[in-house]
């Protein structure tokens, strides 16, 4: 669905953020885009949505060039930025304003999602940040666009709304859609993400599915560190050592610990890259 071929990008010509990256994203999955602050997660999302343009290389999104910003491409992309901008109008007028841009927009779904999110039927200027964010999410999910991009969607959401967001994602995902979520709050969404893209210092460290991660790695709490075992990464506390190691035949599959995987990827880039690329 999305293909980056040797794409380079930087906000200034002298300093590239991404140099010659290659990346492929497929429909039918929820991608989790992970990276430290300033790693370039939002930039990667903006590239896909045609909001910034590559300096070099070829980027195609459903066989279209996002920089052309062709209506047939824009119809299928819904981008929910981290910092949202909402005009001072009624929530229903806001929906009505966006609807014409998305041919598959379903107003009944929109109203239903607003209700599920407990959104008052008022002017947006009387709403809190979290409520406005939920209006955007409801609109994005009701757009039925093929590519839905959510930049830090759980920021500002209360506890019931996070749960609702998880249910919404499980509702709208189908084999023709691709949902991309950048997040630091991995625990909010880790049961939904089935593909992981980890970026650091302008590099794609991994792009893989969670199934392959648990096939190749084990995550566990171990009381001691063995001198014979090779660990890819470990963290030590009074509770013991949280370890990430290559899974051997006798190891049972463990649950993916996304935070631990993230730290392993950042601290042992080469070890992780070798296993997954």
């Amino acid at each position, binding site marked *: 669905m999305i293909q980056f071929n040797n794409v380079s990008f930087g906000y200034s010509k002298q300093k590239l953020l991404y140099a010659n990256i290659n990346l492929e994203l497929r429909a*039918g*999955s*929820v991608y989790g885009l992970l990276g430290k602050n300033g790693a370039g997660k939002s930039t990667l999302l903006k590239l896909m949505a045609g909001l910034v343009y590559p300096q070099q290389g070829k980027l195609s999104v459903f066989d279209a060039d996002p920089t052309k910003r062709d209506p047939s491409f824009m119809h299928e992309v819904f981008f929910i930025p981290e910092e949202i901008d909402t005009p001072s109008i009624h929530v229903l007028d806001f929906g009505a304003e966006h609807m014409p841009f998305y041919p598959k927009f379903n107003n009944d779904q929109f109203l239903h999602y607003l209700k599920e999110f407990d959104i008052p039927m008022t002017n947006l200027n009387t709403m809190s940040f979290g409520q406005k964010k939920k209006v955007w999410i409801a609109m994005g999910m009701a757009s039925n666009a093929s590519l839905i991009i959510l930049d830090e969607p759980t920021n500002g959401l209360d506890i019931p709304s996070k*749960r609702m967001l*998880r*249910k919404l*994602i*499980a*509702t709208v*995902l189908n084999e023709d859609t691709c949902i991309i979520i950048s997040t630091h709050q991995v625990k909010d969404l880790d*049961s*939904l*993400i*089935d593909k992981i893209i980890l970026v650091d210092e302008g590099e794609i460290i991994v792009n893989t599915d969670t*199934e392959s991660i*648990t096939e190749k790695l084990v*995550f*566990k709490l171990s009381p001691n560190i063995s001198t014979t075992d090779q660990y890819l990464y470990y963290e030590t506390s009074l509770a013991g050592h949280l370890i990430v190691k290559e899974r051997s035949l006798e190891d*049972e*599959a*463990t*649950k*993916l610990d996304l935070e631990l995987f993230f730290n392993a990827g950042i601290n042992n880039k080469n070890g992780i890259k070798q296993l997954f690329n």
Partner: protein
Amino acid sequence: MNFHSNKAIYIQIADLICEKILSKTFKEEERIPSVRELAIDLEVNPNTVMRTYEYLQDLHIITNKRGVGFFVNTYSIEKVTAYLRKEFMEQELPTLFKNMKILAVNINELEKLYHQYLQNNIKNSNEKK
């Protein structure tokens, strides 16, 4: 659902369904929730539930009737018991043994406690009757 255990999520969902079959919440030859229904209910990716259902099909616990949905097999209770028994023997028992060794718990001690437990159980169920 909170996925606290260190098992893969799809296995935890499989365990949950097995539990529901044993408790007869999901009865033999009856339809169970669709992949999407269960994904929404448990707030997980539908692909994960699909993997659970494939896993349970391989264990002959459920069957996919095309276009209709997933159904609990006849004699699934036996299969579920065998599956959970295997899980217990291979995973829970080693942990128990490990703790017994660390805490120097004697097997005879354990046997006594187990018989006590069984007796209490019988007493309790008789009282209920």
